[in-house]
C-alpha cells in the first residue's frame, strides 16, 4: 500500500528541471527535443574562461560520476576554446548530480552554468556568433579578461575609434 508511495513535494527536483533554453538549430520538433533533454546524459557548460582546460573540467565534473566524453567548444574561425563545452556522462543520475551540485559553483574562479543538452552532433562544438565565438560574446558590453576582453561589437567600435 504505502511503501512505494511518495509525495509530490519530495519529487520536485528543481535543479534538474529543464531550463527555458531550446536549441534553435535542433532538427526535430520541440517535443522531440524535450524528450531527449529529459533523458540526456549530456550537459552544456557555459561561462568558462577561454583558458579553462579539458583537464580542469574533467576534475570538477568527475566529482559527480564517471565522464564518458568532454567536447570543448571552439571558435568557428580560430578553432580555439571559446568558453563552453559539453560533458557527457555514462549515467543520467551522474549528470543530474552535476546539475544539482556543480552548476552555479566556480571553475577557474568563474561561476559556471550547466544545462541539459539533447546530445552532441558534429558541428555543435562551434560558436554561433558572427565572429566565430559564442553569441553572448558578440554583443556584451563588459570587459571580461577570461573571455577575450570586450565583446566583439565593442571591439569593432574601439577599432573604429582608433583608426
Amino acid at each position, binding site marked *: *500500500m*504505502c*511503501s512505494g*508511495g*511518495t509525495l*509530490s513535494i519530495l519529487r520536485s527536483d528543481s535543479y534538474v528541471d529543464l531550463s527555458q533554453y531550446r536549441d534553435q538549430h535542433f532538427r526535430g520538433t520541440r517535443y522531440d527535443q524535450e524528450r531527449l533533454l529529459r533523458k540526456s546524459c549530456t550537459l552544456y557548460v557555459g561561462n568558462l574562461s577561454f583558458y579553462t582546460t579539458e583537464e580542469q573540467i574533467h576534475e570538477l565534473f568527475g*566529482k559527480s560520476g*564517471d565522464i564518458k566524453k568532454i567536447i570543448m567548444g571552439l571558435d568557428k574561425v580560430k578553432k580555439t576554446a571559446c568558453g563552453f563545452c559539453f560533458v557527457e556522462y555514462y549515467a543520467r543520475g551522474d549528470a543530474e548530480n552535476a546539475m544539482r551540485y556543480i552548476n552555479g*559553483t566556480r571553475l577557474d574562479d568563474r561561476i559556471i552554468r550547466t544545462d541539459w543538452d539533447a546530445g552532441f552532433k558534429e558541428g555543435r562544438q562551434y560558436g554561433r556568433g558572427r565572429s566565430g565565438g559564442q553569441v553572448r560574446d558578440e554583443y556584451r558590453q563588459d570587459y571580461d579578461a577570461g573571455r577575450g576582453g570586450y565583446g566583439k561589437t565593442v571591439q569593432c567600435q574601439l577599432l573604429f575609434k582608433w583608426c
Partner: protein
Amino acid sequence: MSRRRHSDDSDDSDGQPHKRRRTSEPSEIEERLESLICRVGEKSNSSLESNLEGLAGVLEADLPNYKSKILRILCTVARLLPEKLTVYTTLVGLLNARNYNFGGEFVEAMIRQLKECLKVNMYNEAVHLVRFLSDLVNCHVIAAPSMVAMFENFVSVTQEEDVPQVRCDWYIFAFLSSLPWVGKELYEKKDAEMDRLLSQTESYLKRRQKIHVPMLQVWTADKPHPQEEYLDCLWSQIQKLKKDRWQERHILRPYLAFDSILCEALQHNLPPFTPPPHTEDSVYPMPRVIFRMFDYTDDPEGPVMPGSHSVERFVIEEVIFAELFQLPSPPHIEVMYTTLLIELCKLQPGSLPQVLAQATEMLYMRLDTMNTTCVDRFINWFSHHLSNFQFRWSWEDWSDCLTQDLEKPKPKFVREVLEKCMRLSYHQRIIDIVPASFSVLSPANPVCIYKYGDESNRSLPGYTVALCLTIAIKNKASNDEIFSILKDVPNPNQDDDDDEGFTFNPLKIEVFVQTLLHLAAKSFSHSFSALAKFHEVFKTLAESDEGKLHVLRVVYEVWKNHPQMIAVLVDKMIRTQIVDCAAVANWIFSSELAHDFTRFYIWEILHSTIRKMNKHVLKIHKELEDTKARLARQHKRRDSDDDDRSSDREDGPLEEQIERLQEKVESAQSEQKNLFLVIFQRFIMLLTEHLVRCETGGIDVFTPWYKSCIERLQQIFLQHHQIIQQYMVTFENLLFTAELDHHILAVFQQFCALQA
C-alpha cells in the same frame, strides 16, 4: 503524477489544446489535499495551532469522500517527513478527537505500513513510523500500555536465537530512539514495565559484541573526543534523560496547546505487533560510530567562539562533517557537502567561514590519528572548497608540517591537497599561492617524460624505431604500417627460440606506447583519440597478462608527473579492453609503484577499477533478467493467443540468448571474484612482509606506511562490502585463514562483525 506546465499545453502530440477545466475534478482535490497536508507546519502568517485546527476541520469534512486518500497521505508524511513528526501526530490527534473510527483506521494503516517497511528492509523509514506511533500516545490516539506492549515485543527480539546482532540492534534502536518523545508518558503509566525493558536493554548492550567499532571510527585515538558506538551513545543519552525525569526542551510539541480537546478523545489499542521473522533476504542497517569534533562546553581552552550566536554554526558543521566522514559511506554524494558548505558561507558570510576555518584547523591538528578514508574525503573537500575561494588560505599556519618526514599524515595531507588544487587550476597558480618554503610539498609540473626525446638517448635500444614511428604516426600511418615498423624491434626476452609472431616483447610495447603517448600528450582528448586509432596495435601488444602489465608500466613511466592523466588513461584502457581489471590491480601492487603506493591517486584508480568491474557485472545481470522477462512475456502471449502456429521455434533465439548471457554473467562474476582475490592476496603479501621484517628487526610495526596500508585494506572491505559479502566463503577459505598474522586477520573479523 507529472505536472505539465502551461507552455506545454499547446505542444500536445495530438495538437489539440486542452479545454480549461471549469469544475474541480477528484484528482485536483487529491492534489490539493496533499499540498495542504504537506504545507502545514511551514512558515505561515498564522500560528501553527490555528493552521492545524483549520486543516483538521477541512480534512474532517473531506473524510466521507476522500478517506483512503487522506489515510495514504498521512501515512506517507509519517514515513517521509520525520522533521515534522509532532506536527502530524498533533493533526492525527485532532482528527481522532473528531472521528474515532478514522483514528482507528489510521493506526491500523500505520501498523500495516510498518510491517511492509520491515519486510523490504526499509529500516530508516521504519524508525520514523515507530517514533510517530509513540508520539501518538502523547496525542491520546494510542493507549500507553499498548505501546509498552509493542516495545516489549521489540526488546524480546534480543532473546531470539541464531539471528544477526544487527537485527536485535535495530529493534533496540527503534525503542530507545522513541523515548525522547514518549518516555515521560510511558513511565507515568507503566513504570515497572518500562524499568524492566530498560534493564533488559542494558543487559543486551553489555553482552553484544563490538568488534566492528575500530573499522568505523574516524580517529584511532580516543582523545580529545571518544567516538562511541552509536547504541552505547544512545543508551548514555537515554540514561541521562531518565535521570532528568524525561525533561527536554528541544522537541516541538504542538499537541500541548490542544490538551483540553485531546484528553477528551478516546484512545485506541495497538494490535499486538510481532516483529517479522529474520529471513535470508533481510539486510539490516550497519552499525555506526558517533562523530564528535567540538567540545566547547567541556573544554574551556577550546577554540574561541566568534560570538554567542555561533553555537548553532558549530553544531551545523559538526553534523555536516559527521556525514561527510561517515564510514563506510556518507549518506549523500560527497560533492553535495562541499556545495552545501559553500552555500552556507554565502548565507552567513559573517560567521560561517570563520567557524569553517576553525573546523579545518581542528581536523588538520588531528590528522595523525584520522582514518585514511576520512583523510581522502578531507582532501577532496578542502581542495574543492578552496577552488571556490581563490585558494585563499593561511598556509604558513601549517609550516609545522614542513619539518616532518614527508610520509607523515600532515605533510602528506598538504601535498595531496596542493595536487588536487592544481588539478582544478594549473601548476603555476599553485606555486604562486603557497609560500616559498612549501615548495617541497608542491606538486610536480605535470609534463610528459619521453625517454626517446633526447638526442643523448640515442644509444637506447629502440631509439631509431621510435623516431621512425613518430614520423609514421605524424604521416597518418595505418595500424598495419605500425605493425611492420615494430617488427624490427628486437625482443630482449628472446633467449630461447620462441614461436614467431606476437609473444610478449616489452621493448616493442615500450617504443610504441612511449612514442604514441608523447605525440598525443597535448590533452586528454588527444590521448583518447590515439588509443582509439591504434586500438588494434594495443590489443595485440597487450594480449598476454605480462603485456598488459607492461603497458601500464610504460604509461606510468611517461606520465608519472601527471597522475590525473594516468587515471584517465587506465580508465579508457579498461573500457576499451586493452587491459583488464586484474592487470591494473597487479600493477598497483607492483614494485615499480611502491614509491607511489601511499599516494591518493593510486587508490582512486583502484577503487574506480573495482567499481567498473561491479557495474559490468550488474549490467550483464540486468541484460539477463530483461531477456528472461521478454521470454516470459512471449510465453504469456502465446498462452493467451492459443495459436498453434507459434511453436518452440520462436523461443529458440531467446533461449539461446539467455544461455549465452548466463555464461556471460558467470564469467563476469568469476572475473569479479578473481579481482578481489588478487587485491586481497597482494595486500596480505605486502603486510606480512612488513610485519615479519618489523618483528625480526624489533621495530615498531605501526609506521605511517603500515597505518596507511592496513586502512587501505579496510577501505576495500568497507567500500565494496555488498559485493565482497557474496564471495565471503571463498575469501575465508582461501585467504583469511587462522594462520594469518592477527593484525591482518583482525581487519577481516571486524568486517564480518559488521553484518553479524
